[in-house]
């Protein structure tokens, strides 16, 4: 892969990640359905995880695993393992939060019989 294409990837990858975050934010802020809001939050999480993992990459780097083949080889550049470890944590935490949010959606539906926030709004914002 030559350099000019690679620099295009700079814009492509970060741009996509941030666009996905923005699309999720838009969904979470504008949509009326509770489930759609949770979907928006989950999309934000996806974009964010992509953004973080994109920070780990070094051109020509390999996965940070010292297998036997790697130890015998000559190529010694590895990608940054720290963002990967952080994203691992973030994904699992995001799943926990999503599960709790969905259980709240179920309970709100149980009480109100609708998912539309305009009909639910009993409390002032």
């Amino acid at each position, binding site marked *: 892969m030559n350099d000019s294409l690679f620099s295009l990837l700079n814009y492509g990858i970060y741009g996509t990640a941030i666009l996905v975050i923005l699309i999720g934010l838009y969904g979470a802020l504008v949509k009326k359905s509770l489930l759609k809001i949770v979907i928006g939050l989950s999309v934000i999480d996806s974009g964010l995880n992509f953004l973080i993992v994109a920070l780990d990459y070094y051109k020509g780097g390999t996965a940070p695993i010292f297998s036997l083949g790697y130890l015998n080889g000559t190529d010694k550049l590895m990608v940054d393992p720290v963002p990967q470890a952080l994203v691992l944590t973030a994904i699992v935490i995001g799943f926990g939060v999503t599960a709790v949010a*969905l259980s709240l959606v179920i309970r709100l539906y149980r009480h109100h019989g609708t998912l539309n926030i305009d009909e639910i709004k009993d409390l002032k914002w």
Partner: protein
Amino acid sequence: MKKFIVIILLAVLGGYTANIFFDIGFGEPHFVQGVKPVKDIYLSETVSNLNVSNTVTAIVVNFRGFDTLGEVTVLFLAVTALGSILYKRRHQVGKRSVMFSASSIVTSGSKLIFPAIVLLGAYVFIHGHLSPGGGFQGGVIIATGFLLMLLAYENFSIGHNALSIIESLAGITFAGVGLMGFIGGGTFLENFLPTGILNNLFSGGVIPIIYIAVGFKVAAELTGVIYTVLHEKGEVNE
């Protein structure tokens, strides 16, 4: 009207953030000059000190093991929170409220695949320190196996007590191994066992032990999440 305001705000925020990340750059070293990033230490210490092949595992379990303890707690709390939020006084456990009717092809196919999935999950978390994967990944894979069985069979059930016992025991193992580090080395979560030879199954000291405990815990917790949600009655209250 609200939509336009939101779109303009998001465009400003997105443009600003994107500008920053374009500046950081993709695929090139982005740390400022004269800084020694911790990742170099992690990469060198993983092989030389811990005898673990997978650096991500070493970071997750040992260097930043405290995060993982917290993360496992988050999942544990999520299960507890789910149970507390969806609690009803007359809780009819055992009767599934959400059914997905499955044909015989699906049921017999699931029966065939299920042991393979569990085995794969176990493999992934036992070899967490050697190959990609580990406790989280293996635990999640096992949970998907149980998910498959729960979807395919209407009367497939898991003892709720058994799940919570596995969860508790795995958690106690993690925290207990951490506290044993005090005796063995003087700090919490210290790797006090001999680390063995690189790329052997029995290597890495306490790392495989903790990751296996994490695997059991994650599997039990995620199965618990699905189980709780599946048994939720979807009717509107009077």
